């Protein structure tokens, strides 16, 4: 009964989505408030029904009801409870259900908290949400239904892919989906603005919290996924330029650009048409990511779906929404009023520069990801575009972007003073140069680019601090009053500084990890000792252990440095009988921001085991950076004050004053 109730709830949600996508628009057309308000109650009811449906599927997984195909294929009665729950979205059908649940959640949030929106705008936004939701409900019900049944249920399930049996699955997909799907709100706002034919600074104010929320979740989701791949896949890498990773990076780059251009729009009423386009593109890239992962066109760890019917269906949704919204944009954009003007050198100009670099970076990732696919479709050749391409294109785009980052916040709105900003950044520049010089002296020789890259990172961090110091008037006014002024900062100012510093910190981690990473790969027998980066790792013992649904071989290493024992590390290799596959569980030892990483390979006949040991200096900074960025975003989100960009008055105005 649980399964059927969940199934029916999903069908009802589809029905409600269809009503939500039509009635409010008619209401707005004839300005009937009652009809427009239908959007609100249907959005909330839809959330209720999808919530029921998702809860039903979760319950089915928890009680191991193998009469449901989805549970049979992806669960096992011996699996720990946590993985029974996370296994709900560890498969294609369940993860699509999570997708629509989050979509309904955002719709419900707009309905519940959108009191400050004009009635017709809210009706249009929710109607567009209804279109997206209806398309995806239909997709789920027709091609990937999680509630299909087996009349004679099997005794035991097929178990979840062992790689996914990890705490990472509990966090990464929900975060990522909150990010992906969150951008649907800015998309709906953009389409609603196009339909209504009016857009202004207030629009950006209304859409800001949604974009920020989506961006925060996407940032954390990507960082979490990267850390998960780092410790679970056992290669010690944290980013592989895998198409699935790129699929999440593209909306992030576009979303970051959107975040910045929306600021210009809210504060200065400029860049309006461009912001609308970015909103559309960001969600389109999210949809594209969903298509790439869900249709199975890519074969990688994440692609569990290989049914062509699904691929074609998602492709249709993709064409409908991207094509439809872009056509609407082409048709209506010219009717939107242009906004405020600004000089090329100004805060607005800096943000335009930021947008240019971010969208270009996004385009290169797009090409690098889709070109091999296109080529395969056209000629049948399988090529892979790997790290070299992305490093060569991404690096040159990000260096000038990062150089420009500290300048942006220091420029005035409307017309800025580049020379003045450069003067104020002198201290940051000097700090960066000192960092480069010290590093150079310290490592003498070796990688040339690494100290320069770290210098750049230091410049970004110092630049963020300079901005704060400048605003507080530090060194210009008394310390006490500077602190008082800093207290009075809008939280968004702190948010900007944290987010920008986060970029620098992540860059330091990336450079250190790639340049000074040391490794040991070899066969080891008990009581053998490996020396890596000044640490001695002694293999004490290899033992076997039975887990709930796997057996594991655990190796125990004693780590010591200069004769002093630090800790015991126990990497293991798990064997899952049901899927007859195995996973490596790397052991991590954190020392400050650096990590020792051990992963096990195969054993050979005489009891020796293949071991990979890495020492990764400052590797954790790679993830602390994004966390800091997300924290900055959170600060900005918590700041409910209005954003005003006070324009710098032209000097000419003063020259026109009557002479004495």
């Amino acid at each position, binding site marked *: 009964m649980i399964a059927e109730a969940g199934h029916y709830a999903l069908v009802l949600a589809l029905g409600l989505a269809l009503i939500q996508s039509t009635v409010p628009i008619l209401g707005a057309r004839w300005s009937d408030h009652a*009809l427009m308000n*239908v959007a609100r109650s249907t959005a*909330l009811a839809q959330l209720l029904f999808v919530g029921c449906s998702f809860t039903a599927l979760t319950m089915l997984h928890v009680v191991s009801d193998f009469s449901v195909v989805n549970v049979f294929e992806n669960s096992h009665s011996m699996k720990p409870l946590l993985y029974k729950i996370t296994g709900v979205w560890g498969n294609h059908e369940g993860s699509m259900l999570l997708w629509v649940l989050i979509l309904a959640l955002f719709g419900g949030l707009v309905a519940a908290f959108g009191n400050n*929106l*004009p009635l017709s705008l809210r009706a249009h936004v929710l109607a567009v949400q209804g279109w997206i939701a209806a398309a995806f409900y239909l997709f789920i019900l027709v091609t990937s239904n999680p509630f299909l049944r087996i009349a004679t249920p099997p005794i035991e399930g097929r178990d979840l892919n062992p790689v996914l049996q990890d705490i990472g699955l509990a966090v990464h997909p929900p975060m990522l989906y909150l990010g992906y799907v969150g951008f649907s709100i800015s998309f709906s706002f953009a389409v609603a603005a196009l339909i209504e034919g009016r857009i202004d600074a*207030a629009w950006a*104010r209304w859409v800001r919290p949604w974009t920020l929320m989506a961006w925060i979740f996407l940032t954390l989701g990507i960082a979490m996924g990267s850390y998960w791949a780092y410790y679970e896949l056992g290669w010690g890498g944290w980013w592989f330029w895998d198409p699935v990773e790129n699929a999440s990076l593209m909306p992030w780059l576009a979303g970051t650009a959107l975040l910045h251009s929306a600021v210009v729009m809210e504060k200065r*009423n400029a860049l309006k048409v461009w912001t609308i386009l970015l909103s559309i593109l960001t969600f389109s890239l999210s949809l594209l990511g969903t298509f790439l992962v869900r249709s199975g066109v890519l074969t990688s760890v994440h692609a569990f779906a290989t049914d062509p019917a699904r691929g074609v269906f998602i492709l249709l949704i993709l064409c409908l929404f991207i094509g439809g919204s872009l056509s609407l944009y082409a048709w209506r954009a010219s009717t939107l009023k242009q906004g405020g003007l600004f000089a090329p050198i100004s805060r607005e100009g800096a943000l335009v520069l930021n947008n240019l670099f971010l969208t270009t970076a996004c385009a290169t990732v797009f090409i690098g990801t889709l070109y091999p696919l296109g080529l395969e479709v056209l000629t049948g050749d399988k090529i892979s575009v790997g790290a070299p391409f992305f490093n060569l294109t991404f690096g040159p785009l990000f260096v000038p972007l990062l150089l420009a980052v500290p300048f942006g916040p220091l420029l005035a709105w409307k017309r800025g003073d580049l020379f003045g900003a450069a003067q104020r950044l002198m201290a940051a520049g000097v700090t960066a140069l000192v960092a480069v010089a010290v590093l150079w002296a310290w490592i003498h020789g070796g990688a040339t680019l690494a100290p320069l890259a770290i210098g750049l990172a230091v410049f970004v961090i110092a630049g963020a601090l300079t901005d704060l110091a400048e605003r507080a008037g530090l060194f210009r006014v008394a310390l006490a009053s500077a602190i008082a002024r800093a207290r009075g900062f809008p939280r968004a100012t702190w948010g900007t500084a944290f987010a920008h510093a986060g970029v620098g910190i992540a860059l330091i981690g990336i450079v250190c990890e790639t340049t000074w990473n040391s490794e040991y790969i070899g066969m080891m027998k008990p009581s053998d000792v490996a020396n890596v980066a000044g640490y001695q790792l002694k293999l004490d013992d290899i033992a076997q252990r039975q887990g709930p649904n796997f057996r594991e071989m655990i190796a125990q290493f004693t780590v010591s440095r200069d004769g002093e024992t630090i800790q015991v590390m126990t990497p293991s290799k798990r064997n899952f009988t049901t899927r007859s596959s195995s996973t490596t569980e790397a052991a991590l030892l954190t020392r400050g921001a650096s990590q020792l990483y051990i992963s096990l390979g195969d054993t050979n006949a005489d009891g020796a085991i293949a071991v990979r040991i890495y020492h990764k200096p400052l590797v954790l900074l790679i993830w602390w950076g994004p966390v800091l960025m997300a924290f900055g975003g959170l600060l900005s989100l918590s700041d409910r004050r209005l954003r005003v960009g*006070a324009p710098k008055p032209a000097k000419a105005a003063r020259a026109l004053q009557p002479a004495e």
Partner: protein
Amino acid sequence: MTLWFMFALMTVAAIFAVLWPLSRGSSAPAGGDEAAVYKDQLAEVERDAAAGLIGVAEAEAARVEIGRRLLATADGQRDRPSRANLGLRRASAIVALVGLPIAAVTFYLSLGSPRLGDFPLASRTRTADVNQPIENMVAQVEAHLEKNPADGRGWTVLAPVLARLGRYDDAVRAYRNVITYAGDSAERRSDLGEVLAGAAGGVVTAEAKAEFERAVAQNAEEPKANYFLGLAAEQDGRQADAAAIWRGMLAKAPADAPWRPLLQAALARVDETAAPAVSGDAMAAARDTNEDDRSAMIRAMVDRLATRLKQNGNDVEGWLRLVRAYMVMGERDKAVSALAEARQAVAGDAEHLRQLNEGLKKLGLDG
């Protein structure tokens, strides 16, 4: 019945969600508008200017800009006062009251299985589940052995059970522990060899062979080790050696040995493959002759087999051997024609035809 009652409740809730705002009519509160945002922005400018975060001139410029935006909103009032459109409201109500339930139930019935009840694990374990007890016992013994890994007797009990359950990798480890903690013996070595071969999908690997050789070194008469050494010889393509080993075993074996039939079947297999006409001497001769002569001899054997099959076609094994021989000799055309002939010959017997098809599949030809 409860299920349909629940469906009805859910449907009512869905309908209510649509009808409720319609019934409230125009009394619903209107939303916010742009003017509110700009007024707040003006207040913000005042606060920032008072706190000294922006200069006086900038604040004035900002005020002017925001004022301009505020004026612009006054031109286009967004939310016009509500005009009740009764026709549309009625149509929406009808869609919700009639269309929604009909569409939902129709769509659901085409996909769902309302007659299937729940089958949670808890209610299923009460019914027959033969595998569960033994696996639980194995898990208990394994847990015990983790704490006492030097318990040789425990490993001796566990190892054969693991082998029977098909967990060969674990069985290999278990037998190694048996040898370590409960003492070495020819029998245990050959058991270890057997699970090693099992882990390799039935192939006697070099590792497994080494174990059998160790077993034979301890006890030359150990039947399992000898049998597998023969199998190793067969898999290496040394049919004569295999036959010799097995024949020797049969000669020495007691008349009531339970493995006699297995050995006889194996012997029959290699004897046939080695072709009845070719004795050990002939093979030795074949090894000495040069390449051309040898291939001529093989060809002669194959032709003989083909002739025999033409006379008596009801020999599936024979046909398969013939097809395999043609494939090995690189004569695919002949293999295909032999295949067709074989199909014709055994067409009358469904069981034979099935065997033939399975054999062909193994050879990599379509079945």
